[in-house]
């Protein structure tokens, strides 16, 4: 059966399209894109009037926790959350147990994902064996099994020689290196941003410089090696400036920002609610402004969730003892709409780019991030007018660690199309 997405506002940053069009899908692929495509009996119609139709959204940074931490999340529950959040593909980080530093773990994740969800996964392999930051993992073996990038994510690579070799070797194999840029010695066990609020609350602070220093190192090594480096979750004004400056010097660096870093500030920590504890930590209003400017001018290429599920009992503890992170797959799109697009801080096209075209380009998914005749039909369909009320029971993740529960957020994902299959996610 064919699928017709009718009368939606098609926004495709790749081709520059932004107009009301019909899209006909057949055999998993885009068959035609036209002003008016006739309806017939053998066509399932999705009326997208008043909605945005975009290339399928890809999350460059999430934690699916399987294998090893199935109490927090499974590949099945994580991908369900991804689909409800409007993502047609996600990149799970390697900090599972065992760590994804071998073809065995990579294959397990890919096979499992295929069984439980239509959402595509593009795993990120470990940069070093067991993420210890010492010896490089077997990149070629993992690449052949299906990884698209390498990273030690939550365990920053402190040894610059290891980072240099990772950039050189990954580059040789056509793999991207993603770095959680943070000098862990400067972090010194901190649990929030270092600033006025940490001074008052007596919580140990993490200075913005911990991130800046490592971004400077990474961009210096990128220049030295000529290899691409992608900076995960940029959270401060200084970091945005550092990336912008490196770009000006033609250093091949790309960057992402998370919805919480453009939506929330460090003042929230005054509640001591551990759903405001993440790494990098929530920063100041100035930092939020700079991150948004970075997203607007393209210094920060994309929006990634850093979806980090943690079990209820793990988060229901003293603030400085709680694990970092919040779930984010189901709130990313509405948060971007409410905080970026509707207040006119970035254009709709830039937002779609940040969620689809840019991540696809960064990770090297040639056919994704675009709506093109003959290509696989992965689409994200959303509304700028509908509201998302995040209720606990609507959360598909096994973990419910979100500070947005109970909050109404403007914007809502209505449906996704993955490989030509329509998934209606919400009543109109």
């Amino acid at each position, binding site marked *: 059966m064919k699928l017709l997405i009718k009368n939606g506002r098609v926004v495709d940053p790749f081709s520059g399209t932004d107009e009301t069009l019909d899209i006909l899908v057949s055999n998993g692929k885009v068959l035609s894109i036209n002003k008016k495509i006739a309806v017939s009996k053998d066509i399932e119609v999705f009326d997208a009037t008043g909605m945005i139709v975009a290339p399928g959204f890809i999350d460059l940074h999430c934690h699916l926790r399987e294998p090893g931490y199935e109490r927090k999340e499974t590949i099945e529950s994580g991908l369900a959350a991804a689909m409800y959040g409007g993502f047609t593909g996600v990149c799970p980080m390697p900090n599972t147990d065992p760590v994804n530093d071998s073809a065995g773990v990579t294959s397990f994740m890919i096979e499992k994902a295929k069984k439980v969800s239509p959402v595509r996964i593009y795993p990120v392999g470990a940069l070093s064996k067991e993420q210890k930051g010492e010896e490089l993992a077997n990149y070629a073996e993992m690449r052949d099994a299906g990884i698209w990038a390498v990273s030690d994510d939550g365990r920053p690579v402190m040894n610059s020689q290891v980072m240099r070799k990772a950039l050189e070797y990954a580059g040789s194999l056509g793999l991207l290196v993603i770095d959680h840029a943070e000098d862990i010695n400067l972090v010194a066990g901190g649990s929030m941003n*270092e*600033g*006025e609020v*940490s*001074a*008052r*609350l*007596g*919580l140990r*602070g993490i*200075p913005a410089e911990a991130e800046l220093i490592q971004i400077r190192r990474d961009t210096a090594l990128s220049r030295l090696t000529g290899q691409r480096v992608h900076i995960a979750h940029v959270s401060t004004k200084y970091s945005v400036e550092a990336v912008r400056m490196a770009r000006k010097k033609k250093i091949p660096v790309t960057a992402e920002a998370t919805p919480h870093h453009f939506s929330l500030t460090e003042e929230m920590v005054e*509640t*001591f609610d551990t759903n405001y504890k993440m790494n990098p930590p929530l920063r100041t209003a100035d930092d939020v402004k700079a991150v948004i400017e970075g997203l607007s001018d393209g210094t920060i290429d994309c929006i990634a969730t850093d979806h980090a599920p943690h079990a209820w*009992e793990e988060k*229901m*503890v*003293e*603030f*400085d*003892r709680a694990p970092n992170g919040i779930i984010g797959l189901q709130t990313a799109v509405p948060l971007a709409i409410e905080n970026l697009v509707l207040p006119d801080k970035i254009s709709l096209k830039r937002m779609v780019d940040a969620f689809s075209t840019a991540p696809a380009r960064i990770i090297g998914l040639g056919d994704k991030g675009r709506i093109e005749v003959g290509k696989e039909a992965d689409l994200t369909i959303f509304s700028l007018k509908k509201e998302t009320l995040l209720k606990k029971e609507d959360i598909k993740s096994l973990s419910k660690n979100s500070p947005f529960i109970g909050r109404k957020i403007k914007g809502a994902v209505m449906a996704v199309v993955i490989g030509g299959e329509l998934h209606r996610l919400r009543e109109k």
Partner: protein
Amino acid sequence: MKIGKHLIGIRGLSKADITHILDTAEKMKEISDRPIKKVPALRGKLIVNLFFENSTRTRSSFEIAEKRLSADSLNFSASTSAVQKGETLLDTVLNIERMQPDAYVMRHASPGSCKFISNYVKGSVINAGDGAHEHPTQALLDAMTIREKKGGFEGLDILICGDITHSRVVRSNIHLLKTMGANVTVAGPATMIPPHIDKMGVKVETNFDRALKGKDVVMMLRIQLERQTKNLFPSMKEYYLTYGLTEERFKLAAKDAIVMHPGPINRGVEISSEMADCRESVILDQVENGVSVRMAVLYLLMGGGEDEASN
């Protein structure tokens, strides 16, 4: 006049609240001088002293305050508790909660832990020190002592010197003293002063001699021996040389200045023996006032009537 349900911190208390607590504490002080040092104000109330961190002074002071108000108290310390067996803080508290306590006096190493617990219990939570966040009853007993010696707070120049970063005493004192109209300077090596502390309305000074000049109150903080390993200062000897309060240095302060310390003191580290024991030292007055202040806080939070207390 109620001062709220919990006492999590000084932050949020008004000038009137603080004055009311101090006035009540002064009335309480007389009870400790009676031959029978007990009033029935909190008879039948159960107070749980939840100490997840070691404390002698603060815990004893609270216990005595509870006894003088006729409350029943239960001491719970982490070393003998289920915490050792891996129980979470919340589970520990929820278990105790079913024994129907009317208040918790809690000390814990994590900032915000008292606030966290206050969301899940029926009774009052009194913060007896949560990490480097707040230690409100310490600031109140300090204030009571300052008011006794100086008559008030308006325009007083107060110096707090030592490990500002790790001190809950400092934060509660800053909130209190600023609210009451005093000028506060914090001093110490920059390794032990958190950036942005000036945004709390205090002056920051790293030169101790300069900091001491003309101060009406000099409050020295305990230097914890284990900090040395974290490069906060190279040695005890060097600390004493640069930031130890000596008789010679104290001459820089105002003529009638007083010396304070929340204890326990390290003689020869942050303060010389002579200074600890000198006429200007009010360190033991602070300890004495601690009982009165804690009686006042327990009494006000747990809703006793004014008449009962003065009985």
